[in-house]
């Protein structure tokens, strides 16, 4: 499978949040604003890609029985690196907003999932792109969710308030809104998949013509 395809697959078919439904904790927590979502997305992307690469490099050395703890050590070290970078360079308000969720990247099911399912069995380059793909997919999902939550909840896009007569529904910034928003997005994704299936069935129905069945009474040409 070409490298580009792994990338595309990670973002669309196997989008970790929207399709595989893993890594939900940070998704809901950090999508109060698009800026936070981007911060979280980038951090996770970095950790995911780097840990995929390192794990795929050393996967032969990890004994089969305790491969999970080894993966976790690799991931945890990258997370610690990211935490330090964020503490040092990232703008303070993003750091406070993401707060506890940066260290929680290590337990983000996506990273361990990709490491277990892909990185430990494939080459370095493939793992790199798989990490990139999943990471981008994750970030895309985060940004989409954050966009809606911020728009509805805080009446702003990327912190630029929109002056409308409508009062923002603050629920979307708070916890219940996160669940409902993601639930609706998942519903939309499922609706699109069902519509594609229906179109396929309709197309197959269109192709089906009963008189094509050859019997003793109905001989072709």
């Amino acid at each position, binding site marked *: 499978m070409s490298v580009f395809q792994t990338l595309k697959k990670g973002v669309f078919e196997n989008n970790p949040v929207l399709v595989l439904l893993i890594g939900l904790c940070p998704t*809901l927590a950090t999508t109060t604003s698009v800026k936070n979502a981007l911060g979280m997305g980038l951090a996770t992307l970095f950790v995911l890609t780097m840990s995929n690469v390192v794990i795929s490099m050393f996967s032969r050395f990890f004994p089969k029985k305790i491969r999970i703890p080894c993966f976790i050590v690799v991931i945890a070290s990258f997370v610690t690196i990211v935490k330090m970078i964020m503490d040092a360079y990232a703008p303070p308000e993003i750091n406070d907003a993401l707060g506890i969720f940066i260290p929680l990247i290590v337990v983000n099911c996506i990273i361990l999932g990709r490491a277990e399912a892909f990185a430990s069995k494939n080459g370095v380059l493939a793992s790199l792109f798989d990490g990139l793909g999943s990471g981008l997919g994750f970030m895309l999902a985060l940004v989409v969710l954050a966009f809606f939550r911020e728009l509805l909840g805080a009446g702003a896009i990327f912190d630029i308030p929109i002056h409308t007569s409508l009062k923002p529904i603050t629920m979307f910034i708070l916890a219940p809104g996160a669940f409902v928003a993601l639930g609706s997005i998942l519903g939309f994704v499922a609706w699109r998949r069902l519509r594609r299936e229906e179109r396929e069935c309709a197309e197959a129905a269109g192709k089906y013509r009963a008189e094509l069945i050859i019997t003793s009474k109905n001989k072709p040409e």
Partner: protein
Amino acid sequence: MSGTEAFIIFFNVLLINNFVLAKFLGLCPFFGVSKRTGDALSMGAAVVFVMFMASLVTAFINWFFLLGHPGNLFYRAMGGDPAAYDMTFLYTIVYILVIAVLVQLVEMALMKLSPPIYRALGIYLPLITTNCAILGVALLNNDFAVEASGFWVYLAKCLIQGLGAGIGFTIAMLLMSGIRERLEYIPVPKPFRGIPISFIVAGIMALAFMGFASMI
């Protein structure tokens, strides 16, 4: 550490800032295992146990090894300025190792002692390791270290928070599994069947849990 303070910590984590519905921790197993009440209960029990043990062990490690304060064993052994021994940047890696080991222990014990529960949890037992709630509780326990007067007060607070969080998680799991069992035979619109409707139901539950906000 008066009784009311203990109650406040416990109640805060149990209902007000419920780990699942307010802090968004531990959502993967929350949505994954809450299909049947039986599984939800056994998952909840396993999480309560692992959280309690995790709080216990991380409290010891944090107080005696990581924090740069007089209680630090290295400071006691090697002297010098206690602040120099501040290893708090190791939180993530040390805590996750502790949790991984604990879960491995629980997995082995369950496989040996009661295979049915082990089979019921199935894939979700290793998933406890990556369960954000457990690492979350360990990290949140660190805040107690700052103003704790002594180690035993700190330990008590950590254990209460660990227990409260675990039970809060189980409550949310049970409520959710009760509703999801009924959702199975309600004609929900097709695209929303399964996980999407569970999210919306969780959203409504979170709305309800927000009612506890001003209790304390």
